[in-house]
């Protein structure tokens, strides 16, 4: 008498500890085990996942593609891209910092310790640190800081000095300061509330860093306004830079050509895939964020 069930989807992802038939692959599909998922302020949450070893290959600027649980009984149909916030190899954990906003990220917000969470990655091209650089400037706002934060780890490992300018609406939503501080970066907070986040002031701050020879390279993410500022200053002073871009994604691996952004190379405009050609791009080539 039983009717067929209409269960969908096979679930095949690697759990922490599973034997890996293909340890050489760059990426994979994983069932991470939620260690914690706490609010860092009123808008952002911090997710810590215990993951399979293969997932620990992630480096700064790369992202995972997340299959979010449903916040409302209907399915979330597409994965959500999310930068790796931190990789903790000794503990076998990776971390995400995210804004709870739409269906996917609100679904993600419901995860509780012990839950499984399906993530695919690590994907994309991350940040690159030139061995010649002694000091870099990181400028980010909002969720962009989640993407930039692991640069502090990368820089610390490479003994590169970091100045992180953290822009935020108000003191309550300044993020990742502890992470940058903890890894020896110098942090400067600029705020909307006291107008210190205005472009003119940020420009002054960066010009100061340039004079102090603390700016061998620029890194940014999350704001068109700040990207433009850094592009101008970079061009003016001949300072190279990198920007992490965002775009709606489907495959995340470079197959579908959904995640296109415009870049200008030697005066010629072209489209590139954020997921595979980026998400980190040469700052001067980006045409708007």
């Amino acid at each position, binding site marked *: 008498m039983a009717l067929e069930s209409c269960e969908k989807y096979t679930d095949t992802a690697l759990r922490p500890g599973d034997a890996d038939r293909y340890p050489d*692959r760059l990426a994979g599909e994983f069932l991470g085990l939620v260690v914690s998922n706490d609010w860092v302020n009123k808008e952002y949450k911090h997710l810590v996942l215990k993951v399979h070893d293969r997932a620990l290959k992630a480096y700064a600027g790369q992202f995972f593609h997340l299959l979010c649980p449903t916040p409302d009984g209907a399915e*979330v149909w597409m994965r959500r891209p999310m930068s790796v916030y931190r990789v903790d190899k000794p503990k076998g954990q990776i971390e995400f910092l995210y804004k709870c906003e739409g269906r996917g990220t609100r679904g993600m917000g419901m995860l509780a310790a012990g839950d499984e969470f399906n993530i695919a990655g690590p*994907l994309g091209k991350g940040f690159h640190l030139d061995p010649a650089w002694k000091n870099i400037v990181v400028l980010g706002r909002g969720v962009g800081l989640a993407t930039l934060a692991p640069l502090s780890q990368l820089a610390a490992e490479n003994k590169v000095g970091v100045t992180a300018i953290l822009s935020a609406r108000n003191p309550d939503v300044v993020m990742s300061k502890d992470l940058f501080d903890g890894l020896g970066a110098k942090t400067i907070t600029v705020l909307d509330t006291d107008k210190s986040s205005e472009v003119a002031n940020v420009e002054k701050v960066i010009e100061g860093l340039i004079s102090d020879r603390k700016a061998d390279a620029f890194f940014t993410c999350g704001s068109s306004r700040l990207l433009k500022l850094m592009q101008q200053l970079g061009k003016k002073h001949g300072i190279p830079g990198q920007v992490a871009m965002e775009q709606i994604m489907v*495959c995340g691996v470079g197959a*579908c050509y959904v995640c296109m952004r415009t870049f200008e190379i030697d005066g010629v405009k072209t489209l590139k895939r954020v997921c595979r050609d980026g998400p980190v791009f040469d700052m001067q080539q980006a045409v708007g964020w």
Partner: protein
Amino acid sequence: MVSGMVDLSVKIGDITLANPVTPASGAFSWEYNDVIDLNRLGGLVAKTICREPRLGNPTPRMAETEAGIIQSIGLPGKGIEYFIDHIVPEYARFTPPLIVSCSSDNIEEFALLTEELAACPDVDVIEANISCPTRNLTGQNFAMHEDYTRDAVKAIKDKCAGKPLWVKLSPNAGDIVSIAKAAEDAGADCLVIANTFLSLKIRTDNFRPALGNKFGGLVSPALKPIVLRMVYQVAKQVKIPIIGIGGVTKAEDVVEYMLAGASAVGIGYAGFRNPTALVQIIDDLEAWCNERGIKKVTDLIGAVKDDDMEMDPLVTASHGV
């Protein structure tokens, strides 16, 4: 998983697929090798290539809908030369046959493109995408009309140089059976059913179409019963093999398409959702067959039991749930 018992291989004309699970064109590339072992797949299906370079459609190219996504890519690509020089070699590193999808809205250009592809030794199959709903703004394409289909397929077939020609049809056509027959008559060696459903989403926050191209193709597991019906209807009327594409997310869906008359399936959405899905579906299909003592997966093709259906509602209503 019990292994090594069922023979999963299927033949599509002269081409043997190690198993009936292939990716769908446009939803796959060699780059998936970062995540899965491409040699496990029944075939490798390259994204539709056009003769001239194309940027594709305006962004956003994807929007989530109530149950699935609409997307409008617009067949971007670097043109046939780049494709043959740089992309075919990427696929040639792997063992499964390479099926190359190609497209044009002009029959002569389509024929030229076919000729160039057919001349490339690493290309095993030519798949004519005469059904992309988003390559132009109206959603029109050859596969909407019996006559256009016949003309296009004839011209393309002429230039295949003996290589198999698969023809991808549109679910937006009203009479899929006539179009399928026209393609068969004109020389198609296999029918790929189907491409995506022409669709629209309008944002209620700004009253604008959600996609840069306005229209997009709907992709969703929800659509499987529609495409399955088409495969079933066409299979009863044509002799050439069929590849069913639409909403396959698990091994049972492969079985369902095969029962309806397909020889193999193509998978798009499920591979986006779970990048390892195709490999898992192959494993599950093998296990499914072995559990039931099915020795050859080809025994499933067209095996739906539909010849003894009870059509008296007074009788059927008294059967148990």
